[in-house]
């Protein structure tokens, strides 16, 4: 009788460890699914990802403004820069 009771206790302990192991597996899976959801949300290719062959980033609009500034030795450069900054 005592042997039977001891055997049952051993089975309960083993079952608990299997249940805990299953919970851990499911929890890890859920964490990975959550990470993939977060990663999927940022699947955006923006202008910040664009580079030239030399690896430098080029702002076409800044270049255009700089070129026009050079053409007439612009006296209003500061004012224009402020206007452009306001407009983004």
């Amino acid at each position: 009788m005592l042997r039977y009771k001891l055997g049952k206790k051993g089975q309960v302990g083993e079952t608990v460890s299997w249940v805990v192991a299953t919970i851990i597996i499911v929890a890890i899976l859920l964490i990975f699914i959550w990470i993939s959801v977060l990663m999927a949300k940022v699947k955006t290719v923006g202008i910040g990802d664009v580079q030239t062959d030399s690896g430098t980033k080029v702002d076409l609009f800044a270049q255009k403004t700089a070129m026009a500034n050079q053409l007439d030795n612009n006296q209003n450069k500061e004012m224009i820069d402020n206007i452009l900054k306001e407009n983004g």
Partner: protein
Amino acid sequence: MDKRGDKILSVYWFAVIIIVAGGIFGMVYVYYGTPYDVREIEANVMTNQIADCISYAGRINANIISNQQESGTDFLKQCHLSFDSTDWTDEQYYTEINVYNLNYLNNATFSVNAGNNNWISFCALQQNSSQERLTQCVKKSFYSLDNSNNQYIIKILTVVRKSEKNVKI
């Protein structure tokens, strides 16, 4: 007794394998089921094309600016752009160009718009992160000169919608 335990254990292992496989399937489905959102680049490429069309090497294209009555369609033709697409029933793009003389910043010297102007209202909603996926709006401005060295500020607004192909709705 042992045999019954083995049976239960193998069923349990099958269950675990199915759960793990399901989890991996879920991860792959979620990640690869979401399309890449390339509208920002598309809007920037369009803005660059328009900017090059209006002003090149620091000088404004006089042909475009001189025609005050120019329609959006004519403007697009001159800039080698077409907003028509067989994939969509309605136009998915909108662009608005305003050229201001530096001495009269309140009134645009030249103004033209083309495309579907329904999308412009979504630009204001972009501030709200939950609605930022409706459209992609790119606003750029630069400085240029005409042949008489008059100074101009050119403002370009470009809107791309195409939400269905770039965002999981």
